[in-house]
């Protein structure tokens, strides 16, 4: 599978995330994105499929494709919610903004063109687009789950950049990264659980007691 194709599918999943209202669908989309990303090192590293790359690919596929979605579904069940409540920015509007963000990301990718390798500009663009999509989801949605999803999409964007633009990040660093993300999502999941128990909802815009 070519890198370009995988990246294009990632873009499409991002757009779907922007337009979807059902939380379950969102979680599944993010899971799909995770699986795709697991394929990415295999695709780029076609010439040197080392143990390092395989471990990384399998690890991230398992974690992002299966563990995280299950964790989030569990939280969702606990909270008895399925849909996003009135988001700050509507779904159509989100898609529109998504279009703009994609344009901006492509522009940025062109700016950072690396030593002649033109295909990398698309990598940078998709990475940036994912980061921006993730940020947008965190900012524009109300449910805590959605924010965890946004964070994951952001991390995916960074991962795309790391895999695509830099040939050899040391394994130790990569594993540390994976572990950190895992713990982060785990802690966030626990936090969502606690919040849900204490507040009987998980609309984070209502968490505004602390101000000033």
């Amino acid at each position, binding site marked *: 599978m070519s890198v370009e194709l995988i990246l294009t599918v990632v873009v499409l999943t991002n757009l779907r995330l922007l337009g979807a209202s059902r939380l379950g669908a969102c979680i599944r989309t993010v899971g799909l994105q995770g699986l795709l990303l697991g394929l990415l090192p295999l695709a780029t590293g076609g010439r040197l499929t080392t143990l390092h790359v395989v471990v990384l690919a399998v690890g991230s596929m398992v974690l992002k494709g299966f563990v995280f979605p299950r964790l989030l579904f569990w939280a969702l069940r606990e909270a008895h919610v399925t849909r996003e409540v009135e988001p700050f920015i509507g779904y159509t509007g989100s898609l529109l903004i998504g279009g703009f963000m994609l344009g901006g990301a492509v522009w940025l990718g062109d*700016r*950072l063109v*690396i*030593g002649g390798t033109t295909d990398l500009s698309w990598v940078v663009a998709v990475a940036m687009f994912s*980061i921006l999509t993730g*940020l947008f989801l*965190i900012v524009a949605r109300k449910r*805590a789950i959605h*924010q965890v999803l946004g*964070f994951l999409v*952001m*991390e995916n*964007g*960074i991962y795309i*950049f*790391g895999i695509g*633009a*830099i*040939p*050899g*990040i*040391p394994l*130790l*660093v990569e594993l*540390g*990264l994976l572990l*950190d993300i895992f*713990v*982060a999502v785990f*802690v*966030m999941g*626990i*936090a969502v659980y*606690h*919040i849900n128990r*204490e*507040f009987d909802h998980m609309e*984070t815009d209502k*968490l*505004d*007691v*602390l101000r*000033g």
Partner: protein
Amino acid sequence: MNSYLVIWLLLIVPVAAACLAVLQKSARVALRIALVGVGIELCLGLAIAKRVFSSGAATAGAEWLRLDALGAYNLVVMLVVYFLSSVYALFYFGREIDAGKLVANRARMFAGLWCGALGAMTLVFVSNNLGIMWVGIEATTLLTAPLISVHVTRESLEAMWKYILICSVGVAFAFMGTLLVAAGARSMGIESEHILFWTELCRNASVLDPAFVKAGFVFLLVGYGTKAGLAPMHNWLPDAHSQAPTPVSAIFSGFMLNAALYCVMRYVPVVESVPGLKGWSSSLLILLGIVSILVAAVFILSQHDLKRLLAYHSVEHMGIITLGLGLGGLGTFAALFHTLNHSLCKTVAFFTAGRLGQACGTHNMSRLSGSMRLSIVWGGGLFCSILVLIGIAPFAIFMSEFQILKAAADNQAMVVAALFLVGCGIVFVGALGHAMPLAWGDPGDARLALPARRAEAAIVFLPLAALLVLGLWMPASFKHALAAAADVIKQAGAVQADSMFSIAR
């Protein structure tokens, strides 16, 4: 003992202490184990720091771990703060255990995470690989997050949620920045294994791709800046500081912020030596520093909650350190000096504020008024530490702030100097206005006695005394250590340690 062994021990001791503490049944024993662990760590840290300052950087693990003067200085400051906070935690939680407000497993969790966070922060200072350094920061975030809601309340959960999400986003940016810098280093033809080694980056800075380094530094600054509480990314900070139990607030403010700023410091010499980027990072640092000072000023002026007030002071002081860093020269020296001053003072401020809050059941300043009449240790200590924080002479913060002002004047940056003074002036006016009724106001009917043990009095007044001494007299060895640490930032020995003190001669 070999220095590489000490470095490994620095990482092992906290983890071991964490494991031991979690396994205990008794809450008190867990807390004591944490204290002992931190104590051992402090001794180790002092020993290695002494060696580093006298004979240069120490390395271990095939250069993956490296402790130079900058790291050692920060490590020692952190360990001192950590040790003080551990002593304080023992008394603080001891009272809560007595009152039945803290159950054993929460206390064990606290002790474990406390030591774990220490290990993570130590990792930040000893790693030579910038990726591992990042891992350390992220680990710190995750380990400290549950500490905020040791007492599970709605407010603490809200604070924890904001903390974890904002900081995770920020730290993710920092990782993106790290990767961008690494991407910029692709062409420098070093082994990919060593691509993120700080020493390698410094050595090969001249061949880095400026475009990537620029973008990377922006990501890094925003990312680590979020963790360091620089405005406008500081919003999690007042919530987390105010809701966390006081020992946690103390290390948050006293050192976790500095650890993130330390990461930025690591990149400054790299960025500065990239061709064409001389002075580029300074402008960013100065900008964020000034914005932080001014934003903090806005919120300090109309604050009602004592711990939030102190939290905004942290924003201000992080801004001051960043500003000093951006100004360079004497400013770098002053920024590092200020790190110590702020950490010591803020820790004491939180200790006293926390004790008063614990006794009165609120951190609302109008209900804590007249604290000096309740207890000279807690009330007086709080008043003194606020005065020191807002830059009263002859304490050390006044000196470091004056040095930063001098650095601004040396750079002909008079607008910066003016904004700096305006910000500090507003903070002074506001904080003094809060501090005076807090110390001397009418205590109302809440006349309770707040006895303090000798050890408690010591952890309140010894740091303040140290600040007084440092404001009037800087021992030669300390000055040497600071200068050596500052030289690391000013591109490894490019500037002679004493050149900036020619003034004194």
